[in-house]
């Protein structure tokens, strides 16, 4: 779960980390009032869940009231397109207005759990304010990675190592230790999958300041972070994806026209790939999970049908915990309730498959049954060919 920059900074400020003074605004008037209070210059930053905001025109510096008004009017309500948002972009509903600061140097700093080593990873670079992937590609020697044992935690020698690598001055080094200790605490105590400070500024006033903060919270940990759970912002979420989440269905909307419903994430991805191989394009990823019941199947089916681009549906279930008879009943109930007028191919295998097939056969519904995965692919290909 991604946080907005202003939410991330509020969280980090609670750990004593230095963030610029700022205020969130959702209108030009509120933004101007905030800017007047903070004093000029101010930075005006779009609050959306996507990186690359600056290049997309979502971040502006205003030296006076007139510039602030112009920037606020331009950014609020704009549809921001960056390399992370894709073509449709996302609408800017809020901005963060921040006090401008004079910067001497910009660093890069991040802490994240590293899947390869199973340790926490501290990453720092002297090239702040740039896309770190680009730095990694062009000047890998300018990036320092330090593994931190999750049981031992951050050690002073590790902070020293990074401080030397960043060639910090004496005055910088003095506050760097506290900064890192606090950042590490914030990351581990809040189950953050990523905390990225880019840039970490060293200002003309000789202090560090977290100019930007990108934070992602582990959704699996929200049971122990009620406060963070409340920060979820679904405004940019696809409405069908939100609907699916209500029923604990794992649904991602894609661009194709073959809807599909599968139990298990790996099999769901493989089924999407199979649709592509058959010469069609998947309209979605939908994993109903290993423990799905008839009601969940019914909701899944409704969500697929609610997407107007879907022209045919493939249901692929390998019954283990989810028995085929349960699946079949869910499909029949959903089909009856929703008046399906597009072709539906059903492929089932596993526990109670005979009973499941019988339920489908006796339903009088116009369903195409596939005997195995290869057969399902051929049937989808035939249907897609006629679309």
């Amino acid at each position: 779960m991604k946080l907005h920059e202003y939410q991330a900074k509020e969280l980090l400020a609670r750990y004593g980390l230095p963030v610029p003074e700022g205020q969130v605004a959702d209108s030009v008037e509120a933004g101007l009032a905030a800017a007047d209070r903070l004093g000029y210059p101010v930075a005006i930053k779009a609050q959306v869940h996507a990186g690359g905001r600056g290049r997309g025109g979502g971040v502006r510096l205003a030296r006076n009231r007139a510039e602030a008004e112009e920037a606020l009017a331009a950014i609020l309500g704009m549809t921001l397109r960056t390399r992370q948002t894709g073509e449709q972009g996302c609408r800017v509903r809020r901005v963060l207005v921040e006090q401008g600061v004079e910067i001497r140097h910009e660093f890069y700093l991040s802490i994240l759990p590293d899947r390869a080593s199973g340790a926490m990873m501290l990453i720092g670079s002297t090239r702040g304010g740039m896309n770190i992937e680009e730095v990694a590609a062009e000047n890998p020697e300018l990036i320092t990675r330090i593994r931190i044992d999750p049981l031992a935690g951050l050690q002073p020698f590790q902070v020293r190592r990074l401080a030397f690598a960043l060639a910090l001055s004496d005055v910088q080094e003095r506050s760097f230790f506290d900064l890192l200790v606090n950042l590490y605490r914030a990351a581990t105590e809040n189950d953050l999958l990523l905390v990225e400070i880019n840039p970490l500024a060293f200002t003309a006033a000789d202090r560090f300041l977290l100019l930007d903060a990108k934070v992602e919270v582990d959704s699996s940990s929200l049971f122990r972070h009620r406060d963070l759970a409340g920060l979820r912002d679904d405004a940019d979420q696809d409405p069908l994806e939100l609907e699916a989440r209500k029923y604990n269905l794992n649904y991602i909307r894609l661009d194709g026209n073959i809807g599909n419903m599968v139990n298990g994430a790996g099999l769901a991805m493989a089924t999407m790939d199979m649709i592509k191989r058959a010469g069609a394009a998947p309209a979605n990823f939908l994993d109903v999970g290993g423990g799905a019941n008839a009601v969940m199947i019914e909701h899944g089916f409704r969500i697929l049908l609610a997407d107007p681009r879907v022209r045919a549906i493939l249901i692929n279930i390998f019954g283990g915990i989810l028995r085929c008879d349960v699946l079949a009943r869910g499909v029949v109930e959903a089909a009856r309730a929703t008046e399906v007028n597009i072709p539906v191919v059903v492929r089932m295998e596993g526990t109670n498959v005979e009973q499941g097939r019988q339920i489908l056969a006796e339903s009088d519904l116009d369903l195409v049954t596939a005997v195995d995965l290869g057969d399902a692919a051929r049937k989808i290909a035939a249907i897609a060919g006629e679309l």
Partner: protein
Amino acid sequence: MSIFIDRNTRLLVQGITGREGRFHADQCRRYGTRIVAGVTPGKGGSTVDGTPVFNTVADALRETGANTSLVLVPPPFAADAIMEAADAGIGLVVCITEGIPLMDMLKVRSFLRLTGCRLIGPNCPGIITPGVCKVGIMPGPIHTPGPVGVISRSGTLTYEVVHQLSGQGIGQSTCIGIGGDPVVGTSFIDCLRAFAHDPRTRGLVLVGEIGGSAEEEAARWIRDHLDIPVVGFIAGLTAPPGRRMGHAGAIVSGASGTATAKINAMRDCGIHVCEDLGDFGPFCARIFANLLLETGSG
């Protein structure tokens, strides 16, 4: 022969008094697994379907000689359950639970290193040695005993693959789901190493998916250490970048973790990659043809 579990497995089920725990304990028992104990804190002294329940893993181990644990407890308590089993001296823990916070798993991994306990999972279907022992939630009847080992990051996709293998008369030595989380206890390479020491495993199937680089590392290990035929399959060619595809670990980040990169790495290392899941069984029948002849004749 097999890896990690066999006739000597004495299984303990953590969370046996829950609905899922009881159901799957019963399924494992019916498959032939020797279930010697259950553990649910506060329910010690009771029994579930004839199996004695203990308050702690240490108690269960002392009273029953359990050597393997199946963890079927909800995510908030799963890391604690794994560490309790490891601390008590259990040698193999299989954790099915999906949705354990990543930070918990980092601590579990470090903790396990101090104990010598092996963890399979979490977020996995478990492990099965067909005809002998099942420690997990996979449907037993699709498996048949035989010479091919199966290692997978997935659940139902593994069932599909195994079902197609069995359909071609290709039996399995041991099938392991290592789990779909970004941090798991046992890697592809750990499994490969174990299979390399199992003389009865004479072919391997590796089922991977997008995210991370475990498949690439496994492919290189196979190239350097194994001379038995290996078939690979990778799910997620059509997965859009930046989205988590159900499994917490299944995400393409930038240019890394893509299905194409994994498929290429596998091919470069001499692995036979099947790209059409619908044709997986016949594909394996061709690759493992010699193997089956040898098995048939001897």
